[in-house]
């Protein structure tokens, strides 16, 4: 079956990664480049979660309803979810650091165009 949930999620994730790389290498504005990196992050996270999905199984969280119906062992893989949970928080830190650099560069030259930063040291 080509149209399963995992395949659709993988296609969405790969298209988002390509859109992020395209934004990072073709846009001139620094804020647009940072938005491109953010899209790249989201695509990578979707791919990693989709690789751990098992068909017809539920979330790996135990509650009373789950124990009563006896479906506590039909769960998806929890390891990629834990990895992505860490990666989202670190992605926020990286985005904030890039934004602070963009602010310092704007205060130096009063411009956000990437072509106006040509010298290696200023």
């Amino acid at each position: 079956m080509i149209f399963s949930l995992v395949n659709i999620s993988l296609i969405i994730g790969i298209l988002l990664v390509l859109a992020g790389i395209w934004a990072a290498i073709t846009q001139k504005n620094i804020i647009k480049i940072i938005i491109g990196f953010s899209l790249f992050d989201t695509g990578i996270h979707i791919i990693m979660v989709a690789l751990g999905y098992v068909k017809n199984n539920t979330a790996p969280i135990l509650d009373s309803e789950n124990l009563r119906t006896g479906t506590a062992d039909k769960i998806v893989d929890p390891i990629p979810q834990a990895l992505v949970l860490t990666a989202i928080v670190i992605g926020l830190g990286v985005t904030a650091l890039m934004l602070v650099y963009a602010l310092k560069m704007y205060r130096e030259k009063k411009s956000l165009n990437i072509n106006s930063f040509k010298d290696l040291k200023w």
Partner: protein
Amino acid sequence: MIQLIIAIVLGMIMILMAGVAIYHKKLKVAIIAAGAVSLFASILYILLAAPDVALTEASIGSGLSVVIFFYVLNKIRKYDTEK
């Protein structure tokens, strides 16, 4: 069955929003579109049976990230193409 239809519609919306976020001229519209991509990725995580990742993505990708972007955009307001 309905999960597949929801996933396909969410994927179309996310790809179009990414296009808006890359190619729109006003920076504030681009930032709102990038927040909307995270908002729909959160629904896709619920379909993929990962509610904890969906919680984190909805709170950080769509809440805190938009706040940080607008805080920086407030300091470089002269550069944003107004009106």
